[in-house]
């Protein structure tokens, strides 16, 4: 189920979007939201999630190379823990994992949703016109540990 949404479903949507809109225009930027879980293990019970996000890193790099000549860039963002409805069992203050997540992060805090905006706009815009196939962590330094 997780793989169907995060990887397989996303691949079909990406392919359709590229074929219908980006190839005809000769330009486009795809930004996949992967996760630090795609790079390293962490809290327990998220194996399928980690597998899907690591797969998405591979898909990002492969499609970047395949579509570069068509003016289409493919990059990814790897967030660490952000508070959301989906992550609430880990990130909410009454979660048994909350304290551990905070203490593990070099910045000693969760990300705030608005902190993704800058990276998204950077990757979507001409500011990153020569960048494709990269993954930018937005993680308070977690992947550098």
């Amino acid at each position, binding site marked *: 189920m997780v793989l169907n949404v995060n990887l397989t*479903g996303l691949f079909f*949507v990406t392919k359709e979007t590229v074929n219908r809109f980006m190839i005809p225009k000769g330009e486009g930027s795809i930004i996949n*939201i992967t996760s630090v879980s795609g790079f390293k293990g962490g809290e327990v019970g998220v194996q399928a999630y980690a597998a899907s996000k690591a797969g998405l890193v591979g898909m990002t790099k492969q499609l970047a190379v395949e579509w570069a000549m068509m003016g289409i860039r493919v990059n990814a963002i790897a*967030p660490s823990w952000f508070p959301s409805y989906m992550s609430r069992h880990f990130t909410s203050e009454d979660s048994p994992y909350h304290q551990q997540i905070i203490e593990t992060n070099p910045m000693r805090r969760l990300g705030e949703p608005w902190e993704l905006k800058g990276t998204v706009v950077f990757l979507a815009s001409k500011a990153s016109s020569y960048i494709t196939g990269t993954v930018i962590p937005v993680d308070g330094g977690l992947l550098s540990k």
Partner: protein
Amino acid sequence: MTQMNIIDLFRLTNKAAFVTGGAKGLGTAINEGLLEAGVKKLFFCGRGRHGSVEAESTRLTGLFPEAEIIGYQCDLSDE
């Protein structure tokens, strides 16, 4: 490619964007960022439980009345 001013490099004026998982959570911050940068047409989709697609459409239309915002209810795992 022609050289551009640094602020203009970040502008998404008159662009179209499609955000999956855009009805709730982090996707809504991404919607906002794209619209603030100038996106003219924003398509987003989400599984839409508890009316979240309509709620996000209404919120974004209020914040960015000049943009065209179209929310879809869809499940990416459903081929």
